């Protein structure tokens, strides 16, 4: 057991740290939303610049544009991205779809798709969620029907994250009416400008952008199919594992807490600095402990990813659980400490910390992405502790029981 980094890894961290220090504007807040056109081109430019240096994906194999440094190096990079509030236009591709394609894609797909991604040149969207298939991914209705050497896709996706114009769509669609439902899904990668694709942005509260995407007789070749037909659900779950091994969230929380502690040392209430208030001190100490626990869980997952490729549910779900739990409770504690000032937004001359806590608090509402904390508990209970499954129709049963008791 060893919680330290090698010299090479420390060197990589320093290089990347210095790179962001130099490249990011002096007065910089990663919370700046919505993304203006100017900001969009800034991030796109920085993504390419980082890509040229190999800073996006040093953990990936060399033959696909990485530096071949493994999962710990990748964890370091992700941590730095969290620390600096980096918002890559292709975050979805770089951190989810890309690594999953490396795992499940064909040799042709890997050599075609992965190097441009490592260079920071492309943007991918992950088209999974549908109006009737959110946490219940197996209920996907978008259809891909075989037609000669092609597939023809029809259907609708919703809440697809991304403020940029995508180059590729990483899409889950139904290829069979199977029982159980999840054995009839397949995964495709195809260009976003394929005829029949319509992308409609959905501006969200808090300045985030999601999209509605419509497929109207979208014809894609069979080379777009990832892995085997009807195995898409498993590839999708594999994709999510990467989401849960990311060290960025805890690193971002750590930096935010450091800044908040600094703020509490200076900011006064009733003539005294906030940190002299025992309630404030207790809240800060609580957050500091939780951030470290979160960070360790994320690192353990990142480490196991390198060692075993696949994780046990208690590994990755812990990190995800903490992301949901502390990602919500910490902004709340900070809001409590700020009092009424906490409600002021960026732009108000009385707003504290440029209104970033208010935005974090709003942003915490979107932490349901990739599954709510309730879903995580269900998964932990089932797969982690081996408890029996909750009946799918539990809600219906409860409603019935309530009706009968009247």
């Amino acid at each position, binding site marked *: *057991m060893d919680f*330290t*980094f090698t010299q090479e890894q420390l060197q990589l961290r320093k290089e990347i740290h210095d790179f962001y220090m130099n490249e990011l504007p002096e007065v910089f807040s990663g919370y700046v939303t919505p993304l203006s056109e100017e900001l969009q081109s800034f991030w796109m430019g920085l993504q390419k610049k980082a890509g040229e240096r190999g800073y996006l994906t040093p953990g990936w194999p060399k033959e696909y544009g990485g530096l071949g440094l493994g999962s710990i190096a990748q964890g370091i990079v992700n941590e730095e991205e969290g620390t600096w509030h980096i918002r890559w236009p292709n975050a979805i591709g770089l951190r989810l779809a890309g690594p999953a394609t490396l795992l499940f894609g064909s040799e042709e797909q890997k050599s075609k798709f992965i190097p441009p991604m490592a260079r920071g040149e492309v943007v991918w969207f992950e088209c999974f969620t549908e109006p009737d298939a959110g946490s219940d991914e197996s209920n996907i209705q978008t259809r891909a029907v075989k037609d000669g050497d092609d597939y023809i896709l029809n259907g609708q996706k919703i809440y697809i994250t991304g403020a940029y114009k995508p180059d590729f769509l990483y899409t889950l669609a139904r290829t069979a009416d199977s029982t159980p439902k999840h054995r009839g899904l397949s995964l495709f990668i195809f260009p976003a400008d394929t005829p029949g694709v319509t992308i409609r942005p959905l501006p969200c509260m808090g300045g985030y952008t999601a999209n509605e995407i419509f497929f109207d007789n979208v014809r894609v070749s069979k080379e777009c199919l990832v892995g085997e037909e009807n195995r898409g659900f498993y590839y999708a779950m594999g994709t999510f594992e990467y989401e849960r091994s990311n060290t960025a969230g805890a690193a971002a929380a750590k930096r935010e807490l450091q800044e908040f502690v600094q703020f509490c040392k200076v900011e006064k209430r009733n003539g005294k600095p906030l940190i002299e208030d025992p309630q404030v001190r207790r809240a800060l100490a609580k957050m500091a402990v939780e951030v470290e626990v979160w960070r360790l869980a994320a690192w353990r997952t990142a*480490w196991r990813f390198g*060692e075993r490729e696949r994780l046990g549910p208690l590994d990755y779900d812990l990190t995800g659980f903490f992301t949901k739990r502390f990602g919500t409770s910490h902004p709340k504690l900070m809001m409590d400490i700020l009092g009424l000032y906490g409600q002021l937004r960026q732009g108000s001359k009385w707003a504290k910390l440029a209104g970033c806590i208010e935005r974090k608090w709003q942003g915490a509402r979107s932490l349901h992405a990739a599954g709510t904390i309730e879903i995580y508990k269900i998964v932990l209970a089932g797969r982690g502790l081996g408890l029996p499954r909750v009946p799918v129709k539990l809600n219906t049963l409860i409603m019935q029981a309530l009706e009968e008791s009247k």
Partner: protein
Amino acid sequence: MDFSLSEEQEMLKTMARDFLEKECPESLVREMERDDKGYSPELWRKIADLGWLGLIYPEKYGGTGGNILDLVVLYEEMGRAMLPSPHLSTVVLCGLAILTAGSDEQKADLLPKIVDGDLILHWP
């Protein structure tokens, strides 16, 4: 970065688990709750023979020169079995204080006795 246990630590863990499952059943734990001493001197002797009392002391005091992580492996197993013993006060609290701050005479006198199981210390 490495979250795994070394081969030696895995061995220690397995050995400790097997030993404690056999030697420290729940009945013993319950019995010791009503015991005047609160621990079993016979079991303490066996633990000394296994080298658990000298795990983190240098060889010149009769120990095996392990580190705190080795001890953590052992403690997880002792916790799992709810082993009633004065290990913490003797080896860790008092023993490590002697090792860290004791004079050469104190160390040479006391530590080998701890390792052999002949000296039980209490941290008041």
